């Protein structure tokens, strides 16, 4: 930048009043990464009051300069304008043109914003007020999804079978390794915790019942639900959210294709099918974990343990566990897809959608567990 004029003098500002004219004279070398000289404030403040009618900007003996100098001059012009004082400039051509450029597009009226600081009570209030519209919006989404299921069962859906198969593969087969590890270990833990108490009165054999009923009735489903919230719920929200950012969802809508049918339906259907199947698998892995503890740590024989499991665990627990699992599948799918579909159009919004999807599906799973447990209690099953 103006390398031919480089002098290493400091930036200088001198401001003088000549009658009603306030003259600001700049000189020296200016670099944007250095702060303005101390005289800057006095030079700018001198404009106001004192009967100043006109501002004159002059420059002499300028060394190298960049937008640091420009920022100062533009600030001076802005101050003058806000006081309604006309400005004369007698500056080098380049500076003159840059100042002109900085004011070429006037600030749009009403564009500027002042950051409002809201207090705690106000934020609490608006959060409460947001609950109702939020609920309505979710119910609308739920209605759309229900209608999509209606179209699916009457054979009028736009859903593509390959999407459905891909979704099943993603949330079913590819989740097997992580489900294996978590549920096997969970069975082990359950057996260990139980064994500590039960061996005290020689009732180790009841570990079989503890692990069997515990896994089958509720824990298997909850384990799978939590793992799938993190694995699949988050992925759905991020994927659909990114499609929203890229206008892919709008592209579907403009073709007259319901985005719900295309994106949401196959995923919710796949989860509703796959979570119970994975739960069945998790139940077996959990029992294997309990079996390992019983045989290798508690000295029970394998046939003894299997026999005890079959006798102590009625079949109805398996069915109740599958009911939990089916509900969880729906909850995870709804949370993931809902937050994806309602995602804003920025990278930050996608991150938010993903987080909320996971939080909501885990909270949803726990709430549904409580509800189903109470219902089972009332029905005495």
């Amino acid at each position: 930048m103006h390398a031919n004029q480089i002098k290493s003098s400091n930036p200088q500002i001198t401001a003088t009043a000549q009658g009603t004219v306030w003259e600001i004279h700049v000189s020296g070398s200016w670099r944007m990464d250095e702060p303005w000289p101390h005289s800057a404030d006095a030079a700018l403040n001198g404009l106001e009051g004192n009967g100043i009618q006109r501002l004159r900007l002059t420059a002499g003996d300028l060394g190298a300069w960049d937008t640091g100098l420009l920022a100062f001059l533009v600030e001076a012009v802005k101050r003058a304008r806000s006081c309604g004082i006309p400005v004369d400039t007698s500056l080098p051509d380049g500076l003159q043109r840059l100042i002109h450029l900085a004011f070429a597009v006037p600030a749009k009226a009403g564009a500027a914003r002042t950051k409002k600081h809201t207090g705690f009570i106000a934020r609490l209030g608006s959060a409460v007020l947001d609950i109702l519209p939020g609920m309505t919006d979710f119910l609308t989404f739920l209605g759309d999804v229900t209608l999509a299921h209606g179209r699916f069962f009457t054979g009028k859906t736009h859903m593509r079978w390959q999407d459905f198969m891909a979704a099943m593969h993603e949330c079913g087969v590819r989740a097997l390794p992580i489900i294996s590890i978590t549920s096997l270990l969970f069975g082990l833990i359950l057996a260990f915790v139980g064994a500590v108490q039960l061996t005290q009165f020689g009732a180790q054999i009841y570990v079989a019942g503890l692990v069997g009923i515990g896994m089958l009735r509720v824990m298997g489903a909850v384990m799978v639900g939590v793992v799938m919230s993190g694995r699949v719920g988050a992925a759905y929200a991020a994927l659909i959210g990114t499609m929203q950012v890229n206008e892919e969802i709008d592209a579907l809508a403009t073709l007259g294709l319901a985005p719900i049918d295309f994106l949401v339906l196959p995923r919710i259907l796949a989860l509703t099918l796959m979570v119970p199947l994975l739960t069945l698998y998790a139940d077996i892995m959990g029992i294997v974990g309990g079996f390992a503890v019983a045989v290798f740590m508690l000295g029970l024989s394998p046939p003894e343990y299997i026999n005890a499991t079959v006798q102590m665990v009625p079949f109805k627990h398996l069915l109740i566990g599958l009911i939990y699992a089916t509900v969880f599948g729906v909850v995870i799918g709804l949370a993931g897809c809902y937050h994806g579909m309602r995602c804003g159009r920025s990278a930050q919004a996608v991150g938010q959608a993903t987080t909320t999807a996971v939080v909501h599906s885990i909270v949803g799973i726990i709430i549904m567990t409580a509800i189903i447990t109470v219902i089972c209690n009332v029905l005495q099953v």
Partner: protein
Amino acid sequence: MSTAPAPQSKISIRGLQVGYGDYVLMHDVSFDVSPGDIFFITGGSGCGKSTLLRVLMGLKAPQKGQIYYSGEDFWQNSQEGRRHIMRQTGVLFQAGALWSSMTLAENVGLPLQQYTTLSAEDIRRQASLKLALAGLAGFEDYYPSEISGGMRKRAGLARALALDPQILFLDEPSAGLDPVSSRLLDDLILELRDTLGTTFVIVSHELASIFAIASNSIFLDAQSRTVKARGNPRDLVRDSGTDPSALLFLTRGGHNEDKDTVL
């Protein structure tokens, strides 16, 4: 051309070969960008313009050849040396690539915050100035998602200008702009070159802009995968007597539809 950089050049490219894996997108690319040049890299879709730009910006390593910035070999430099070179350049990405979690003033202010010791107030003032130069006065506290595509592009330019770079890379600056905005952007480029002495390297196939403001250019060809023509586009047309668009149309045809243009 010899392999030594031309002494006065801002950027010297010597025998550059660019591609992905074993695939060679272009080879034997050599050119010089002088200080104050408005240098266009142009050619049909898929000829590798944007990839070449990524290599120049230091985002991707070339397969062969040298890139000199003011005589310094970029890829032979230390990590620190490369950072130093990159600090003197600014980039306007095709869609602006603004950080969506920050306001426009924060977007423009971030490079200043990272590279200077200015106070928050001074940074804010510099950011406002750069936004005003790009025609966005008053939009400091808007988020990128709240403004139009053309405005996002101008905000991207304001961010590219944040540190008063000596070299500005622009990727398809007029794509998606209406003809009037595109003209205004061309005027802004000329103005910045004349007043601040910025050197511009622009990837574009907007013929109107190329003929209006280019001081130098290279035309890449997808078939021969190298430079087909070079020089001031107005001289090229005058000397060869061809229709201006022929230069571009002859280069059309692609293997890879500029997959990396949206960064």
